[in-house]
């Protein structure tokens, strides 16, 4: 319901801890921005600045053309789910959820209607009369979420709102939030550590590190075309495998001298970009390292023998820990096979889907494949 511009925003705590640095982002009306990044990278700080709870040390926060830096939180019409819930301990679940509506002088029936509805969505019907003290962790978190969704705010801020819920419930809640978003089109900024949430809910993902934006983009783009090794390693779980090495004669040669042939187009583009035979970092996602597969059309596979170090069943798939030369490696394979440590396997690397980065800066080498990406 609102367009937001964040211009050169910085935040310094206590004069010396810089939590956010030169943050620039435009959020369109109805956008669903997911903010991800390592623990302590400044996500919550960013949300709190948008909410007006933390002073913006530097920069401008504009909402629908109006400079908001100095507007008090209560006038911003923003609903927020706090990372640590911040429920009112002396109020029942019902009153916690009804508080904002009461403040806004909603009619009693309307309040009741909304709260009951939210409680139903959140599976909290049975707990409306309880105080937060007598709730489980996940129930508290749902109350925190409920407190936000009963409102029609201009902007939703959600700080890891589902982190303490079980997979199934999280899945449902995710769906409910998406549904809500589809219905109301309320601009939302959402912090999560859950890759699935990030990938499935976002219209755009913002990846931060140490208070600095690393990349902004649609989920698929971010996944497929990480701007740098950090993003590549951060998005996707298990993380992308990185190998340092260099390009030699159209082949990627690891530090141990293992040679992986490059697809021709890539090799040529690299040459053109001046990475002909300099040091380089290659990244490949675990799912693109497969077990001795029959190469399909358009695939450029390089296969190597490896020894299984650990094989970890995660349910649908198995994570295979192995090595490429001296460098560690994770592959993600179907769970059918029962592999043991010490087993020998032949792993194939889908070089077409591999990523290449500058060895020094870690920035992605633009090799032409990004054409048509909307950033």
């Amino acid at each position, binding site marked *: 319901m609102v367009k937001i511009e964040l211009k050169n925003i910085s935040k310094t705590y206590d004069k010396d801890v810089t939590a956010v640095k030169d943050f620039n982002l435009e959020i369109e009306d109805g956008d669903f921005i997911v903010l991800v990044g390592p623990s302590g990278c400044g996500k919550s700080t960013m949300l709190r600045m948008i909410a007006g709870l933390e002073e913006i040390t530097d920069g401008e926060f504009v909402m629908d053309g109006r400079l908001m830096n100095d507007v008090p939180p209560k006038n911003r019409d923003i609903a927020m789910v706090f990372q640590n819930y911040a429920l009112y*301990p*002396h109020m029942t679940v019902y009153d916690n959820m009804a508080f904002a509506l009461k403040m806004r002088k909603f009619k009693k029936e309307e309040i009741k209607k909304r709260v009951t509805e939210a409680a139903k969505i959140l599976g909290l019907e049975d707990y409306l009369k309880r105080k937060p003290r007598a709730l489980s962790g996940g129930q*508290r978190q749902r109350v925190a979420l409920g407190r936000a969704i009963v409102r029609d705010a201009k902007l939703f801020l959600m700080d890891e709102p589902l982190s303490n819920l079980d997979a199934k419930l999280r899945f449902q809640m995710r769906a409910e939030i998406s549904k809500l978003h589809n219905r109301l089109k309320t601009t939302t900024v959402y912090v999560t550590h859950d890759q699935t949430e990030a990938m499935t809910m976002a219209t755009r993902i913002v990846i931060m590190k140490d208070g600095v934006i690393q990349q902004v983009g649609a989920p698929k783009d971010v996944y497929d075309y990480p701007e740098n090794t950090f993003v590549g390693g951060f998005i996707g779980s298990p993380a992308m495998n990185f190998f340092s090495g260099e390009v030699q004669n159209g082949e990627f040669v690891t530090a141990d001298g293992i040679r992986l042939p490059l697809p021709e187009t890539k090799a040529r583009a690299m040459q053109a970009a001046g990475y002909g035979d300099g040091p380089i970092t290659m990244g490949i996602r675990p799912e693109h390292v497969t077990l001795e597969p029959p190469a399909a059309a358009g695939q450029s596979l390089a296969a190597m023998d490896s020894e299984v170090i650990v094989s970890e069943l995660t349910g649908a798939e198995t994570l295979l820990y192995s090595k490429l030369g001296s460098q560690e490696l994770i592959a993600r394979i179907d769970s059918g096979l029962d592999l043991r440590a010490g087993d020998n396997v032949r792993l194939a690397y889908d070089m077409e889907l591999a990523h290449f980065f500058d060895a020094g800066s870690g920035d992605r080498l633009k090799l032409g494949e990004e054409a048509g990406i909307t950033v």
Partner: protein
Amino acid sequence: MVKQAAGRQKVSHFETIQGRRQALNIINWVLLAAGSILMLSPLWWMLVTSVKTMQEVMTYPPTFWPESWNWSNYMKTWEAAPFDLYTVNTLTITILVVIGNVFVNSFIAYGFAKVPFKGRNVLFAIVLSTMMIPGFVTLIPQYVLFAKLQWLNTYYPLVIPAFFGSAFNIFLLRQFYMTIPDELIEAAKMEGASHFWIWWKIGLPLTKPALATVAIFSFNGAWNDFLGPLLYVNDESLYTLQLGLQVFKGQMSTQWNYLMAGSLLVLLPVIILFFFFQKYFIQGINLQSGGK
């Protein structure tokens, strides 16, 4: 149920949770009971004196158990002055003072604790400093002030100032507000509450134990106030209990039995109030339970 299956180590009773708690409780209880004697001894003395005849009061050496319990002293005490009227008067003042103290001080304290504004620390230091000048230095000028306001011989000087905050209570409540996590205030701000509403809906309920304490202190203070009514009230029909009790005290001799009976009667409501009011400051408010 067989709790002591074969092979299991036997746990000594005082190592168990209940056992340890019990042991602690017993020690605790004994300590408290012993201390109670010290606490109660003056009260016992008052009680004993109150039922003695004056003759026995003056007996040397003093007796710790009265020869006879003259409960009629209480009747006589009550009739020695219009204590019914004084009770009503005292209650009127006390209730108003308590209301003023509880709400207004809480309001002011919230401002000092949770609303940042310029000069807050300086103003707060001034609040504190008003406690530092001995009362009787300002007694005369203050009396003159109230005289100018035409408030003499009314309860205004006793009651109205309570509606403008007292340093002690402001300070006390401020300290309690400072222990409320800012997140709760922030959450309420996000939900559109103004500071006033936050104070009313969050601040007041969360500081209940402190408010109860202030209420008890204020009640106590107003109920036992002697100098205030003495100075500002002239009409004996406006007298309070504490002033009334003075009739038993003379320049040379004092009617101890009546004085003690009267003092005990006056004390009684405070004790009863305290006994039942306790739950408000014992009832825990777990400030952190709303968060992680």
